[in-house]
């Protein structure tokens, strides 16, 4: 179809919206409520354009037709957009200076772009109560602009539906059922609503103060652990291009703010692989419950606990890498160094909001009294911490992680991308079964940003059917198959967040599909660049088994590295 945009001729496909054409052609139209891949709602109207009849239509939801003439920059369009922004601001707390999204807020950016210079409309504002009760995600309904992105994310992508629009008209707000707090709902704390939120209405619960207090206390030995996906994303917070690899700068920065020791969650990822590959082989050989679902993603774990509690025995009993690292620090490392575990403070830096909840799970405590991981900071909070401390991140030298829990292989780092845990586990399972490595270490059929990636692999005499799933709405079909007893799979990796941890709820904002792609490429680039790419070659992991745990699946391993799950109410 031929259409005209700003008097220039363009070719458009039937069924396309105006916005799809302009995005392809590089014509900028501002959006707020729009989310690529999800049904447009046309809720915010900021993308209005003028068509030949003089009508204003929302570009995100309006299909093109032959002969259409669109103006994206007419006087009418500019005035309408500015009015829309002014009206949104009129019902928004004007507290930008003290807002967590100051500097990366879509509404703030729009107000700046459209030259809003006064509060033109003044009137009653919607009131709402803060929801600070959950350990991971906070809600501030007064900041909400009702774009509905979080609601669509929670329902359509994550299939949780913890929040929705309630009430109507002026009193509309986004809220859990019965106006409850998030902590009493089936919210899995994946934080994708935080990533979707264009303003500060949804945000992570910050533990910066607790972290600083521990660092400043000379009596406390602070040990940091850094998750794989942080090192390919945090650069964005300091103006580096998406996908910049900052493995060396992170430990350097942590040392300079006073953290005593820096271990790598990738080490624990290698350890997880040893336990999980062993569990997979045991289940296959002894006729145990199959498929085996991975257990690294705390959002996914909470999802099964709420919605499929009868399938919990299919989930690997392995703690997540964060949990394993915490347990090893407070048992193995404390014993080795003679430090009192009570004086050790484990500071996790995670791309995740759900890890904050995971850290507080009572079953994940080797002492049964104190948590193994004391505080979890998101990538964003960690960046804020470094900014406050005056760390010039981009000029940090390349430094390494500390021993004995700092060494890692390529198998550990790919935990950060969807498909990575599966790939890492297969590399080691192959070695455990056949005694030799796979001919081709790169298992590319489970890589990429698709929500479902399926494959099969021949190990010895057996052919294993495997899948890597990310974005929780994609997992239901696999769970239904298990429930109906007709699942053909042996091993299924699940990540709550679409694309895996690289797109976690704690990652730098604003996010975009291009950024996620770059972060993923960086993850595999690190894997390729490492001399060791299989967990079973990690010498520190071997030493840990030789000196402390025995072998994968040993009694001690089960005591310290494995956990159990519980049924939770689903509302």
């Amino acid at each position: 179809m031929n259409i005209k945009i700003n008097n220039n001729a363009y070719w458009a496909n039937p069924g396309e919206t105006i916005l799809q054409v302009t995005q392809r052609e590089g014509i900028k139209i501002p959006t707020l409520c729009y989310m690529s891949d999800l049904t447009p709602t046309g809720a915010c109207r900021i993308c209005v354009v003028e068509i030949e009849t003089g009508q204003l239509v929302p570009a995100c939801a309006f299909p093109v037709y032959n002969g259409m003439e669109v103006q994206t920059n007419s006087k009418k369009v500019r005035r309408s957009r500015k009015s829309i922004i002014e009206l949104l601001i009129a019902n928004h707390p004007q507290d930008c200076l003290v807002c967590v999204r100051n500097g990366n807020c879509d509404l703030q950016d729009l107000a700046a772009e459209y030259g809003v210079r006064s509060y033109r409309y003044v009137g009653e504002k919607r009131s709402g109560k803060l929801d600070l009760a959950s350990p991971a995600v906070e809600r501030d309904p007064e900041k909400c602009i009702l774009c509905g992105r979080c609601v669509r994310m929670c329902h359509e992508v994550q299939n949780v539906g913890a929040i929705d629009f309630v009430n109507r008209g002026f009193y509309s707000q986004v809220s859990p059922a019965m106006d409850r707090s998030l902590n009493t709902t089936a919210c899995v704390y994946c934080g994708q609503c935080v990533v979707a939120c264009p303003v500060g209405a949804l945000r992570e619960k910050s533990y910066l103060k607790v972290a600083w207090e521990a660092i400043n206390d000379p009596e406390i030995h602070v040990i940091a652990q850094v998750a794989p996906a942080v090192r390919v994303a945090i650069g964005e917070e300091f103006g580096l291009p998406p996908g910049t690899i900052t493995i060396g700068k992170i430990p350097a920065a942590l040392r300079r703010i006073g953290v005593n020791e820096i271990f790598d969650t990738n080490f624990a990822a290698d350890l997880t692989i040893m336990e999980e590959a062993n569990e997979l082989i045991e289940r296959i050989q002894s006729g145990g419950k199959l498929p085996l679902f991975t257990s690294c993603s705390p959002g996914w774990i909470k999802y099964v606990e709420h919605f499929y509690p009868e399938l919990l025995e299919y989930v690997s009993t392995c703690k997540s890498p964060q949990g394993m690292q915490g347990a090893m620090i407070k048992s193995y490392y404390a014993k080795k160094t003679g430090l009192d575990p009570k004086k050790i403070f484990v500071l996790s830096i995670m791309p995740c909001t759900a890890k904050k909840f995971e850290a507080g799970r009572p079953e994940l405590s080797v002492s049964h009294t104190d948590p193994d991981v004391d505080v979890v900071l998101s990538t964003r909070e960690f960046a804020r911490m470094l900014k406050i401390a005056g760390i010039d991140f981009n000029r940090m030298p390349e430094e390494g992680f500390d021993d004995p829990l700092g060494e890692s292989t390529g198998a550990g780092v790919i935990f950060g991308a969807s498909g990575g845990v599966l790939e890492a586990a297969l590399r080691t399972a192959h070695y455990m079964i056949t005694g030799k490595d796979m001919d081709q270490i790169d298992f590319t059929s489970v890589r990429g940003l698709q929500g479902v990636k399926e494959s099969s692999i021949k190990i010895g005499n057996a052919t294993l059917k495997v899948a890597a799933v990310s974005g929780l709405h994609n997992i239901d079909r696999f769970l239904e198959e298990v429930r109906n007893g007709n699942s053909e799979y042996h091993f299924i990796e699940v990540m709550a967040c679409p694309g895996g941890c690289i797109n976690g709820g704690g990652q730098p904002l604003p996010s975009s599909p291009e950024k996620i792609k770059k972060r993923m490429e960086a993850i595999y680039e690190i894997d390729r660049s490492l001399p060791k790419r299989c967990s079973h070659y990690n010498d520190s992991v071997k030493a840990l088994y030789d000196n402390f745990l025995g072998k994968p699946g040993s009694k001690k391993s089960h005591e310290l590295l494995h956990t159990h799950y519980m049924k939770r109410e689903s509302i």
Partner: protein
Amino acid sequence: MSSESVYKKYPKNEASNLIALLQDIQEVHGYLPEDDIIRVAKHAGVPTSRVFGVATFYNQFRLTPLGKHVIRVCRGTACHVKGSLDILQTLEAELGIKAGETTRDLQFTIETVACIGACSIAPVIVIDGKYYGGLTSKSVYKLINEYMKKD
């Protein structure tokens, strides 16, 4: 009809029945109890937040029980001009509740309506379907106290 028979009437996991289900449940209880909102969600196969969203969107649904006597205060234009705000405030003060609420002894509920089509006798209220027109603060005070004495 009991709530059990309501749930039996509608097939499971049919989200399109949501509003009809809620209407029938309200028919049984006079309002939508929290337990039923959760059960309706499970029955229709939709998240509880969505059921709550629907229940709070439509005026016809109530989330609190209805009193034995339902007082509807007309707040339409004619009644407003004739002082219906005074009538409403008198009732609220006398019963100790706001419009939309029910007394703790479950005797009275006050609701406001936009216009009940009886402008000629404005200001007007309806108690249990019975119309009372030409009211003043004083006469409505007397009226409501008669109702309170009756029980």
